[in-house]
């Protein structure tokens, strides 16, 4: 049984779950209990399915008996049509559900007006008999239009409304009306009468049939407004609620490889288990190669992997990937890897979702690749594709599957929102691949635009494909230039030459400096020598002077002696002429003579 969620925003009336995935989320719990809901829509829009599925779910999950009044089709037709769903309706029709065929056969002659009083009396009896909690009036307009009288039709609708109010059952009325668009505009008043109005529509968009559901009215309760995509699977209808009201993904800290070591390093150690990675890029930028590498790495770890490709067969992909050293075939053989190729244009995006869901159920993968998810946008209706893409990502993440999604971007600039599907906000990691064209070469560049919850390199890397698989190289980013491929190689060579040159230049300079140093040193030595010489000279000059003084004194003394002059005062001083011991006697006389003179 599907749990009934109640909106906490404001007190809501008691509700009963329909059990239709998505619808109970949109209506915050289901239909209003003991009240009447109107399901309207054109032919083939799924009105009967909504009603039947609700009855089946109520009967199976809550053991609630129900009555189905078929105005439009025979009971046999309804049972046969519903046999495609896994409801076991035929068995239920024998136990919990009562089908009343209220379709006037074409043989019946009509003469004058009739009313539903008798039928309602019969239904009351049946309801009391089986204890029905639900009643469906399917296609009531078919019978009422036989009245050919709008006033009478309205009267009968009011009769039904009053009957439902008196009987306190959960009621669903379906009517083939398009909300005032068609001739049956007289049924507009039904919308005013009902507590809840759900409109279904089916239209063609780009040749693909799209089903939509919209809650247009819900008395006394909030609901999610807007049109929502509807898909039909083996369990019946499913409504694509835009997003689950609450995201309950467990955040894993376990890292798994994104494919190869260098990329893991750029991502700070790999991808988080259960995260989603978006790879965008224009065609030919190796999105599939990266995805294939991721898938191969997952298989090599022994993890079950699902590879979904759109508009390209599994075989060509496997062959192409093997040319770059990614070998998937052994893993397909071992059953670890499941390849699925879908043609996007044949069925609607919702149908793809249903198919992928069943694949996920069957294969139970731990890792998954969708290549390219953007192809879904081709499957009719961008809005539907967006919703499907989001739901798909949430679905995969709910299952804890690590998913690699590729998307073809329209432009080179990832900032212009690479994907029409607007999934980049949902993705945890976003890797963008681009071409850098320079001097006749096209090189692939890889950038990590975001990676939630982990360090990641902000640098552009060159993605190189070889027989050994993809690898990443540092790009040459000197002087504000980003160079790749041959240019990078050239620049690197140029760099090497320049480095050598620098070494040589350095050596030269050092040599020159050494020479200069030696020169200065030599000059210093020479100066020192001349200094020494000058000192010696100076010393010699001082001695000469002394000698000259001595000799002149001696000459005076000699002259004095010769002239017999008075002894000088100096000769009287007691220790006057001690300096020249050799002629002390003469000297004493000379001193005395000099002082006197």
């Amino acid at each position, binding site marked *: 049984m599907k749990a009934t969620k109640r909106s906490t925003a404001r007190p809501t009336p008691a509700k009963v779950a329909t059990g239709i995935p998505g619808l109970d989320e949109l209506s915050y719990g289901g239909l209003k209990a003991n009240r009447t809901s109107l399901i309207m829509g054109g032919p083939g829009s799924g009105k009967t399915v909504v009603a039947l599925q609700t009855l089946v779910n109520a009967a199976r999950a809550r053991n609630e008996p129900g009555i189905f009044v078929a105005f439009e089709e025979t009971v046999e037709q309804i049972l046969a049509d519903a046999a495609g769903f896994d409801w076991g309706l035929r068995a239920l029709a024998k136990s919990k559900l009562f089908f009343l065929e209220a379709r006037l056969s074409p043989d019946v002659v009509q*003469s004058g007006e009739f009313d539903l009083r008798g039928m309602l009396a019969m239904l009351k009896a049946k309801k009391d008999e089986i204890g029905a909690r639900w009643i469906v009036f399917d296609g009531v307009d078919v019978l009422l239009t036989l009245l050919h009288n709008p006033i009478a039709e309205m009267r009968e609708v009011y009769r039904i409304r009053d009957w439902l109010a008196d009987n306190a059952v959960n009621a669903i009325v379906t009517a083939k009306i398009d909300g005032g668009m068609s001739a049956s505009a007289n049924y507009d008043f039904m919308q005013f009468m009902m507590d809840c109005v759900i409109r279904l529509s089916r239209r063609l968009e780009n040749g693909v049939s799209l089903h939509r559901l919209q809650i247009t009215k819900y008395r006394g309760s909030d609901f999610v407004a807007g049109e929502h995509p509807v898909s039909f699977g083996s369990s019946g209808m499913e409504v694509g609620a835009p997003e689950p009201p609450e995201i309950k993904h467990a955040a894993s800290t376990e890292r798994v490889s994104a494919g190869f070591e260098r990329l893991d390093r750029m991502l700070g150690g790999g991808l988080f288990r259960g995260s989603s990675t978006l790879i965008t890029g224009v065609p030919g930028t190796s999105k599939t190669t990266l995805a294939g590498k991721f898938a191969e790495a997952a298989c090599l770890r022994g993890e079950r992997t699902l590879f979904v490709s759109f508009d390209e067969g599994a075989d060509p992909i496997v062959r192409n990937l093997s040319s770059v050293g990614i070998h998937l075939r052994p893993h397909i053989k071992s059953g670890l890897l499941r390849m699925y190729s879908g043609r996007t244009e044949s069925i609607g995006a919702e149908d793809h979702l249903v198919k992928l869901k069943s694949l996920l159920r069957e294969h139970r993968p731990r890792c998954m690749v969708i290549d390219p998810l953007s192809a879904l946008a081709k499957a009719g209706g961008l809005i539907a594709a967006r919703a499907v893409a989001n739901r798909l990502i949430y679905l995969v993440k709910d299952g804890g599957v690590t998913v690699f999604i590729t998307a073809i971007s329209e432009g080179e600039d990832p900032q212009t929102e690479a994907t029409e599907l607007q999934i980049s906000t949902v993705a945890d990691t976003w890797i963008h691949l681009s071409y850098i064209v320079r001097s006749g070469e096209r090189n692939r560049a890889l950038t990590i635009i975001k990676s939630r919850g982990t360090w990641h390199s902000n640098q552009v890397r060159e993605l190189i494909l070889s027989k050994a698989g993809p690898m990443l190289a540092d790009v040459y980013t000197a002087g504000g230039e980003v160079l790749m491929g041959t240019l990078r190689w050239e620049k690197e060579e140029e760099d090497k030459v320049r480095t050598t040159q620098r070494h040589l230049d350095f050596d030269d300079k050092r040599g020159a400096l050494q020479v200069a140093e030696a020169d200065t040193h030599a000059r210093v030595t020479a100066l020192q020598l001349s200094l020494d010489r000058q000192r010696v000279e100076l010393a010699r000059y001082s001695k000469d002077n002394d000698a000259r003084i001595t000799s002149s004194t001696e000459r005076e003394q000699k002259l004095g002696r010769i002239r017999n002059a008075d002894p000088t005062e100096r000769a009287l001083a007691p220790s006057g002429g001690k300096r020249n011991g050799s002629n002390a006697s003469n000297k004493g006389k000379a001193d005395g003579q000099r002082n006197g003179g």
Partner: protein
Amino acid sequence: MTRKKAKRPADAVVTMVVLKLYIADTAPNSARAIANLAAICKEYLGDGFELEIIDVLEYPQRALADGIIVTPSLTKLSPSPLTKIVGNLSDTRSVLHALGIT
């Protein structure tokens, strides 16, 4: 259940028309149907008919079993083929045609 039986002459050679009329109590359409049918029978069938009037409000299960959908409903059980007419029988011509009276 109201059961109205026409007088049946002992030496009846005329084919008996066996009719069942399902009504919803005294609802306007039901009352009109009874009146219209009575007039038709009186005028065209004389004594050669057998009519049972069943109030669905009273016998809903029986009406269900008989495959009745709306009220009023008239069923001609005999002579064959079985014919069903719905409505208040105000269109005499179509009623006569359906009953095989021309």
